[in-house]
């Protein structure tokens, strides 16, 4: 705009100067970003590419699918187990996050809202490896959960059982990741324009209808980002399955660690890694489709 104006007043020289300034600014921008991009390229993209190469390279250097065949042959059960655990955890995380963030936004008892806001975030920054240890004690046969269930008469002492199997992994994942998604979701809900909510409430709409009809559609993007990030994070957590459920069937990360630490078999490990990348790509595609739709709508 300003370029056109100055161009009209003084045809040749100022126009090229403005353009040069714009170009200089763009180069400055790239120069500012370059170091950060280089770090990601060198220490992330490059090893990722090596993983892809390693998964397809035969011992003689040629192309092969044998590593994938072996990975699927040995670990098809674990692949299914991984998908089921991560999908179930993501679903539960979504439900918990929507319920808590929804109450934080629409709750009418200020004391309950304040208490909940204080309460839900405790596991937010607790590392997975600690969450694994915490659940190892809590969900064990002799853990606090069983003692409370027995003490309150919900189960018989004899039927107390250890939950350190797939259930333990799901509990640890949801315990650790739900606060993260809730934090994002509640933040997005808090910055919404409240007039629609108030209008609907004044017209007598119950809170669950306001939540699912008005609030949630507006923060769907944030929810999806949080869930996709959680989904992918859980796919590559090694410590929790290793600590809670290391025996077969277990998660693919445990198999990868075993192939490397014990057998130094990088080929099959890389094939397993690529399969988990494929799973993550499905999650990312989910997000990108949403992002593209949003960009088209804007």
């Amino acid at each position: 705009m300003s370029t056109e104006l100055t161009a009209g007043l003084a045809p040749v020289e100022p126009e090229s100067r403005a353009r040069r300034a714009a170009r200089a600014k763009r180069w400055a921008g790239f120069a500012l970003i370059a170091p950060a991009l280089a770090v990601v390229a060198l220490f992330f993209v490059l090893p990722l590419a090596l993983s892809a190469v390693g998964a397809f390279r035969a011992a003689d250097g040629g192309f092969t699918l044998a590593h994938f065949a072996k990975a699927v042959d040995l670990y098809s059960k674990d692949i299914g187990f991984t998908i089921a655990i991560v999908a179930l955890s993501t679903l539960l995380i979504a439900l918990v996050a929507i319920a808590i963030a929804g109450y934080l936004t629409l709750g009418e008892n200020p004391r309950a809202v304040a208490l909940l806001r204080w309460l839900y975030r405790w596991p937010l920054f607790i590392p997975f490896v600690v969450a694994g240890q915490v659940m190892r004690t809590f969900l064990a046969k002799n853990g606090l959960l069983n003692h409370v269930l027995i003490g309150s008469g919900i189960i018989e002492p004899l039927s107390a059982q250890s939950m350190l199997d797939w259930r333990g992994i799901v509990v640890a994942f949801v315990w650790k990741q739900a606060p993260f998604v809730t934090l994002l979701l509640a933040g997005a809900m808090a910055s919404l324009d409240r007039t629609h909510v108030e209008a609907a409430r004044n017209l007598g709409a119950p809170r669950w209808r306001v939540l699912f009809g008005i609030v949630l559609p507006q923060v769907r993007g944030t929810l999806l980002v949080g869930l996709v990030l959680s989904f992918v994070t859980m796919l590559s957590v090694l410590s929790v399955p290793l600590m809670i459920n290391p025996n077969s069937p277990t998660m693919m990360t445990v198999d990868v660690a075993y192939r490397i630490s014990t057998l130094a078999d990088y080929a099959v490990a890389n094939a397993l890694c690529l399969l988990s990348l494929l799973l993550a790509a499905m999650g990312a595609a989910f997000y990108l489709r949403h992002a593209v739709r949003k960009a088209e709508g804007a």
Partner: protein
Amino acid sequence: MTATYARSAPLRQMPGALVRAALLALLAFLIFGPLLNLVLWAFAEKWYFPSKLPLEYGFTFWQRVFAPRGNALGSLGTSVWIALLTVVFSLAVAIPAGYALARLRLPWRGAILLAFLLPQAVPNLPVYVNIAQVFYQIGLAGTITGVVLVHASHGLVLAVWIASAAFAAVDGSLEEAARNMGASPWTCFRTVTLPLAAPGLMASAIFVFLESLDEFTGTYFVGVPDVTTLPLLMFNASMGGNYQIASITALLLLVPSIGFMLVVERFLKSDVLAMVGR
């Protein structure tokens, strides 16, 4: 009609209040129960199967953890040192990048933002496995530098995204006013933009610090055999069946995590949070 309604309202709300209290209590148990169990283990001297609570409490294991020749203090030092180096390195590259993404109109801005998301949006295991192999060949395996580089590439998305959101949340008209009064771009950045974005940058620094402090998988592959951080020490103790040592180490790791959780919103205001990823 109205009178009946007014009188019955509190009565009708009674079950609702009870349900609400019960749900909050259940949530409190689910959140604090596991933590309480961990604390019990940290102070248990003896705890066998049928007994509900530890048979004896004491500090014997604490003495063992903090003994001068115990390796917990050494691991703690290693962890904190790695985390500090990771923060310095990440912010040094993230602040310019975040500023450029927020303020300069860059082509492919969305793609660049997504590129930084890669390390969080892609399972990390293949990266750790292969970078460990590369580092082994160039002599970075088992070194602090190697671990810092791995932590930084993973923490960078938080650093860049939050820094970019923090800069974007700064009111542009303030910068314009400074520039109109004759401040150079650098002076304007140093005296106006940077101080206003400081809380957000602080938040990103703390995020990166915590993420590095808590990182397990990358260190597990890249750090072996010489770099033992606190999470690795905890893992080894737990897998070795020593629940007391594992629980005490876990408590040490919990302190910064919970401390930050309690103050996070002081640094990360909702206006910045709303700009994350935009």
